[in-house]
């Protein structure tokens, strides 16, 4: 019994010391980690929607499907709506491809960025390399309303050789983002200022914009 108590206590002491150390580490690193994450997201948004200066979290309630979508609205330095950044995750070859798509207020695709994916290295992963992105950029720049289908399926997008499924998933994701954009488009043009107002998001928005400005 005494033995038991002794062991329990010893473990308690060790655990306590560990707890102190860890709590301290956490208190130091937690803000940094949070900041890193936000920075990364901010960076991605900025990349796909270069015109925007700051971003607001927005929501769209699809009453028909009784679902709520979130997206972020990019505001230019003049306070106008530059466009939206929409996060989609189409099902790729080996799992969801998480990506953000930047669409300007006219509905034109501005850019995309793959956040995470599990595609086959060297094949599906080419989605995030210039091999795929450059022709795609060129396509959206040149064609007003490209058919978002792989060429094989009669669309305009140059699919990645030997990674048709990944390419298709990509097209599906961009289409999804466009669909959502069309739904929220009225919101954007209707009341651009209102969007900047929601108190819950204003805080982070200003924070990120300052960090962004510092760069």
């Amino acid at each position: 019994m005494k033995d038991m108590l002794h062991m329990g206590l010893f473990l308690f002491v060790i655990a306590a010391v560990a707890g102190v150390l860890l709590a301290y580490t956490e208190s130091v690193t937690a803000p940094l980690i949070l900041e890193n994450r936000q920075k990364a997201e901010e960076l991605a948004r900025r990349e796909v929607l270069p015109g925007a200066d700051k971003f607001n979290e927005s929501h769209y309630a699809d009453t028909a499907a009784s679902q709520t979508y979130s997206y972020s609205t990019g505001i230019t330095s003049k306070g106008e709506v530059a466009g939206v950044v929409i996060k989609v995750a189409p099902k790729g070859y080996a799992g969801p491809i998480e990506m953000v798509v930047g669409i300007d207020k006219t509905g034109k695709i501005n850019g995309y960025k793959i956040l995470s994916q599990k595609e086959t290295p060297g094949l599906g992963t080419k989605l995030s390399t210039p091999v795929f992105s450059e022709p795609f950029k060129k396509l959206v720049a040149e064609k007003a309303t490209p058919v978002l289908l792989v060429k094989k399926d009669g669309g305009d997008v140059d699919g990645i050789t030997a990674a048709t499924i990944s390419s298709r998933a990509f097209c599906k994701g961009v289409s999804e983002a466009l669909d959502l954009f069309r739904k929220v488009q009225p919101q954007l043009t209707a009341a651009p200022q209102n969007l900047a107002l929601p108190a819950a998001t204003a805080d982070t928005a200003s924070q990120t914009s300052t960090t962004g400005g510092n760069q």
Partner: protein
Amino acid sequence: MNKLTELTKGIWKENPIFVISLGICPTLAVTSSMTNALGMGIAATFVLMGSNLFISLIRNLVPGKIRIPVYIMIIATFVTIIDKMIAAFSPALSSSLGIFIPLIVVNCIILGRAEAYASKNGPVDSLLDAIGMGIGFTIALSCLAFFRELLGEGKLYGFPIPFFKADPALIMIMAPGGFVVFGLLIALKRFMEAKGATK
């Protein structure tokens, strides 16, 4: 002299991976690039140092029966610390190493050294042992990563290498490549030793 051997034995003679075949899980999983290998090596070395030092300090106080849980807890503490540090200061590395950082906890090298060395030796020796083993571990990881990154991506530390970058063999950076390269490396080491022995 003696201290020096404590330090160097882990690098070649008792290289934790190639000779003692310990801690192979993180070895294979993170060696798809030199950067990851180096990051993992440093992280593991840090944990090894911390745990070895700490354990050798308290080695006479620990009740035998709960020795292992205590060691694991100490190791886990250091692992969590390094995990958070990496996440805070090198988010890219953190995301590419993923859950393999917390998994250092169960890396046999660390517990193995704690049990086999730190629990029986003084803090200075233990620290030296940890550094040596850590370096050996890092070197072994880098060796593997060298072949995998070079052949699998045509790069080293992310820099494209001429000739290799043209058509890299993707399988090298996937799981099978890790297994095969590791197996062949051990065989190569043995083959060289056997050659050396006959000469």
